[in-house]
């Protein structure tokens, strides 16, 4: 089971990594920020899977911090874009 969860984590990160193409291609900076947002969500999912696979609690805490700060970065982006 642990192996399946790890595979799922790798799959999710690989998927959102492909989404990073939007970071490189844009065209608008909003698209780039969306790619970062998707990477954050994928990272959260992968960390939760990792925590379940290894039985360690630490990745869940990191996931929580990522969830908070992904939103924070997006707000900073929107505010800076509207100025």
């Amino acid at each position, binding site marked *: 089971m642990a*192996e399946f969860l*790890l*595979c799922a984590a*790798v799959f999710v*990160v*690989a998927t959102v*990594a492909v989404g*990073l193409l939007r*970071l*490189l291609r*844009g065209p608008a*900076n909003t698209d*780039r*920020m969306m*790619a*970062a947002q998707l*990477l*954050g969500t994928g*990272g959260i999912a*992968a*960390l939760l899977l*990792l925590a379940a696979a290894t039985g360690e*609690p*630490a*990745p869940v*805490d*990191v996931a*929580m*911090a*990522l969830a*908070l*700060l*992904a*939103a*924070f*970065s997006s*707000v*900073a*982006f*929107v*505010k*800076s*874009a509207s*100025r």
Partner: protein
Amino acid sequence: MTDALALAFDFGLAALVLIVATWTLLTRETAAAAVGFVAYGLLLTLVWMRLAAPDVALTEAAIGSGVTGTLLLGAAARLRPTEAAAEAEQPGKAMRFVVALLCASVSAGIAGTILMLPDPAPTLAAEAAAALPETGLGNAVTAVLLSFRSIDTLLETVVLLLALLGVWSLAPDRVWGGRPGPRDGAYQSEVLTFLAQILAPFGIVVAMHFFWIGADAPGGKFQAAAILAAMWILVQRAGLVDSPPVSRRWLRLVVVAGPVVFLAIGFLGSATAGAFLAYPEGYAKPLIIAIEAALLPSLAVALALLVAGPPARTE
């Protein structure tokens, strides 16, 4: 099977880090580069997890990506008018090639050194583990930060304070002691207000959680302070509160309280335990918690004010 999977994952992750870093450095538009830096920080957080350093992963996510990213995004937006002029100052092709060659040789030298590091690696892990019970802590990184190498942490809080003084001293005379940053009007966007109202209380709980578990599990005051700072900036951006004038006495007291308590406990060590920053036997854990509790508000306020910048208006 699992090992091969892990190595493949590491390869992919390392490649992504390098691609995003290269793009961030080479892309034309600075605002786009700042967004790239945020994504780069997220990727580094995953790298730190792979290097079995969850404490660093948390710090990178909070300070490296979140707070620094915000700072760069804001500055890029302000400096947009200057971009075209700066573009013309780019050094010529030959020059860039020479610089690239030099930088590549620096990288090659470092990479070679890393690959030739002695095996087995010298480590202080065993010493840290052996000395851990004396501190009463369960998290070795926290023990290093606040007991074994606490002088580093003390100086670091002083550096943060000095940086804040430096930023404040950049204020023009007429707004000295005023409020940093532009005023964000209240209720400019219901969605932003909603987000700030939901996220900020949640963030405070999460920060306290990190602060509290930091003694025994990954977490601690830096991570907690960075999240608190982020939440304070968020409610300011949403226009729910204004940034405080930096001349306020409470603000200055909060900012210096952490380093002052740290120093006082350090001198207490000279008097009672025979060395600066030594903890009397049996009192290590309560004293460490006292230092952390005093540092948390200081660090949070200092981080947020560093992002806010120098005072810009008197009212």
